[in-house]
């Protein structure tokens, strides 16, 4: 059961081979056994989860089940859930219990899924290692001395360690895909606007996108069927007909054109990662795909542009955490300005403070044009690069991350090195394109390597099809970390 696909779990529940309560208990037990070592969850509430599981069993008994009814799913602690403490990895929200559900949580609840718990993450999703969490770093199940990637590192570790069958994440510059790569699982960042951001605590509004994290592309398709959909409460949500992301999974790949961006294979890419990605290309070719060399000439500008736009938006988005209405407030202060200063200095960690300062700076009078406007122009150039590329190929494929998982603390002191982790993933956020990472082998230290797949707008079904066919031909996605093998 711990290793089963969502399809298998769904079938087992439907055939009453196991009840949702039993299944939930199984994963809760595993979570309580492993969380001390991995720190993947910030909040677990067995009673709440089991109540949901029993309700799901009621639905199954009444033959009112949907594919995910009764299936436990863990949620990144960035999604607010009614009655659940929602911290966003920060001291600022350590006492915040949400009075409402995020749109995504509401969709899972309607589908009858069980909230297994809230997963650890970089504070306010700012990080690529899950080390900036106020609740301590998350450890990589493949090697507990290593990071699981971030910011959705808790979700990644939880799925990798089989503490949950699936999880949600959010991705602003790679926060689903990079941890998926570093933790050996599949993760999808949908097209911007496909999944509602309502109730997803904002980091950088124009880049943030929620998505699923699971073992396989097939699981991702089932999860996306629940998560995607128009939400009138999110003005950036896209109104379009619903899609079944499972429908194209079995299509053959013959004739698929795979664009290989030369910029993603240059300096900075570790040899072990490059080797596994090359092997994946060969595998895809065996399945009928063709390689097309392409160029994304402006992708070198993506990291600097991102580190202007994301902090700019964040500096404004995080202004609401001021100690006035909810969340942390300093115990002692002289006056209003002092209350703000102390509350925010105490409530936010170093990385969050750094980004608020950068963002405040780039939006300041006299700097706005030089930084923010210029970054927006670069953003358009990067999107244009992809538009050009998709005239010649169906998918853009390459490495997700330049290296395999690194040691905890190795890059913590050097923000720029940390930021470069996301060099291959950031362009998709800037362009608003869907992108995913799937496991494609193991590199140095027997740590997982991720294959990055970027599709054109709303081509999730096509991407999942390619990933699923690849996963039918390989078994990287079925490997589980040694030592905690179920």
């Amino acid at each position, binding site marked *: 059961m711990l290793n089963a696909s969502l399809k298998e779990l769904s079938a087992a529940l439907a055939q009453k081979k196991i009840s949702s309560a039993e299944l939930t208990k199984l994963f809760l037990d595993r979570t309580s056994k492993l969380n001390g070592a991995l720190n993947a969850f910030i909040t677990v509430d067995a009673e709440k989860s089991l109540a949901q599981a029993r309700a799901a069993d009621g639905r199954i008994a009444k033959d009112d089940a949907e594919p995910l009814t009764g299936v436990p799913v863990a949620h990144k602690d960035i999604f607010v859930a009614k009655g659940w403490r929602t911290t*966003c990895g920060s001291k600022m929200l350590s006492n915040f219990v949400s009075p409402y559900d995020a749109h995504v949580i509401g969709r899972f609840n309607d589908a009858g899924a069980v909230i297994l718990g809230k997963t650890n993450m970089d504070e306010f999703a700012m990080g690529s290692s899950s080390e900036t969490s106020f609740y301590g770093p998350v450890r990589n199940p493949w090697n507990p001395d290593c990071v699981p990637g971030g910011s959705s590192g808790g979700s990644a570790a939880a799925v990798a360690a089989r503490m949950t069958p699936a999880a949600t994440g959010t991705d602003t510059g790679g926060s689903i895909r990079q941890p998926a790569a570093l933790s050996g699982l599949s993760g999808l960042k949908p097209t911007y606007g496909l999944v509602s951001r309502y109730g997803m605590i904002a980091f950088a509004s124009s880049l943030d996108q929620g998505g699923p994290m699971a073992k396989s592309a097939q699981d991702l398709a089932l999860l996306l069927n629940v998560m995607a959909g128009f939400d009138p409460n999110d003005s950036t949500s896209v109104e379009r007909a619903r899609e079944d992301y499972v429908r194209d999974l079995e299509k053959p790949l013959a004739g698929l054109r795979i664009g290989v961006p030369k910029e993603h294979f240059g300096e900075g890419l570790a040899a072990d990662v490059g080797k596994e990605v090359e092997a994946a290309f060969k595998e895809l070719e065996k399945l009928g795909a063709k390689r097309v060399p392409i160029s994304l000439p402006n992708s070198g500008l993506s990291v600097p542009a991102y580190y202007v736009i994301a902090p700019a938006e964040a500096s404004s988005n995080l202004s609401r955490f*001021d100690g006035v209405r909810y969340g942390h407030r300093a115990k002692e202060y002289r006056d209003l300005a002092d209350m703000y200063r102390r509350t925010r200095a105490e409530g936010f960690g170093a990385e969050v403070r750094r980004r608020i300062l950068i963002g405040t700076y780039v939006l300041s009078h006299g700097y706005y044009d030089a930084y923010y406007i210029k970054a927006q122009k670069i953003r358009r150039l990067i999107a244009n690069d992809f538009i050009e590329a998709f005239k010649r190929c169906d998918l853009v494929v390459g490495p997700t991350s330049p290296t395999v998982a690194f040691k905890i603390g190795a890059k913590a002191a050097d923000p720029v090195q940390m930021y470069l982790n996301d060099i291959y993933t950031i362009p998709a956020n800037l362009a608003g394109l869907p992108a995913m990472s799937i496991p494609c082998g193991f590199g140095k230290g027997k740590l997982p390597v991720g294959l990055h797949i970027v599709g054109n707008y709303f081509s999730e079904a096509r991407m999942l099809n390619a990933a699923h066919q690849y996963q039918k031909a390989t078994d990287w996605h079925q490997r589980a970390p040694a030592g905690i093998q179920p």
Partner: protein
Amino acid sequence: MNWEIVIGLETHAQLSTASKMFSGGSTAFGAPPNTQANAVDIALPGVLPVANKGAIERAIRFGLAVGGEKVINRRSVFARKNYFYPDLPKGYQISQYELPIVKGGEIRILTKNGEKAIRLTRAHLEEDAGKSLHEAFQDMSGIDLNRAGVPLLEIVSEPDMRSAEEAVAYAKALHFLIVEEIEICDGNMQEGSFRCDANVSVRRPGAPLGTRAEIKNLNSFRFLERAIEFEVKRQIEILEDGGKIVQETRLYDPDRDETRSMRTKEEAHDYRYFPDPDLPPLTIAEELIEKIKKSMPESLRAQRDKIVELGLSIQQANQLTGSRSTSTFALPLLADASPKERPILANWILGPLSAKLNEENLSFDQSKVSSDQLKALSKHVSDGMVSNTAATAVILFAMWNGEGSADEIIEKRGLKQISDASAIEKIVDQVLAANAKQVEDYRAGKEKAFNSLVGQVMKATQGKANPAQVNEILKRKLTG
């Protein structure tokens, strides 16, 4: 040498929508603190704004009224204005900055030198902040977020006004336009639905613009006038003493009738405006503009002209179209009435009915006497069933008090006029027979005696005889 006064106004008008600018929260005034603030209004983590279509439509209506289609930007952008204050829940206000929804237009005012056009720079949509209450709590401040998110249209004029009087005329004309003409704002100044900031400077005629001071939050026409007058005097005194005006924001204190410095330019915030990434650019389709154009109410000026065409005086027509609700009530009623009934109806509307509405603080659409009831009553007066006096003095009020229809009241109170000529003649004959002296006096040329005879007839009929008929019959009998 003379000083020229230069004034521009920024007006915040609350748009009359039921829900807030970016949330479904209620905009009702006067509720207990923080009961009208939902998750979006208090800026819980994760909430997002959705622009209110009703507010957008009202802004378009405004654009059409002040400049037509050409002043409406088909693409405008919501921007964040960032600053920290406890009554600003998000730490930023959503407003419009570089691209407002309305650009240009004008408001016409009447000055002592005739009509003058005050140009508008722009009008943009934004949300209001909450309220900080400093007085009620010891060593603490209270925050009421009921107002947070209320939709505002900020209307910015060019510095085209040259006196406090002109500024007030502009503010009043703007108020009339948005409250009565296009009905996008309730205009209640005590509740803060219409408030002005005045930019005031002085200069020698022909010189470039002087340094200005901005006086914030003037919520009555009188305060606007007094604040500008004080400020102008203050600036001229400084300049004539050889001093310099500092660019600053000032507050008007009505108790001391003076303006005080709030913050100087150096202390001004850097608001770090940038386009709100939670809201796509606001695009306005031509069809929407067409739809709104068609739904615009007829201008009150046009309705006034119609009332004049119906045979009423200019003065009455002006009064009848002095507010949208009066005009909406009066015009169809008058248009439907016979020429004889119109003045009767107009007098009722402007006289007893207005008085009753005022007394009970109601508007015409809440009148307790319906226009159908008025119509029936005016018919009875014109065809002689009741006297105008009885209708005006008794029946109208009885109807107001819910005593029933005109017919029922006439019946119940026995107010039916005697219009039967033979019945009146009989009474006239009796009166003439009993008052030989007065008959003689009249025939001897004493006109006064006639009135006394009329009075006798009315007395004999308890006032119910049709006075016109009484006059006519008496005259005929006396001269016959």
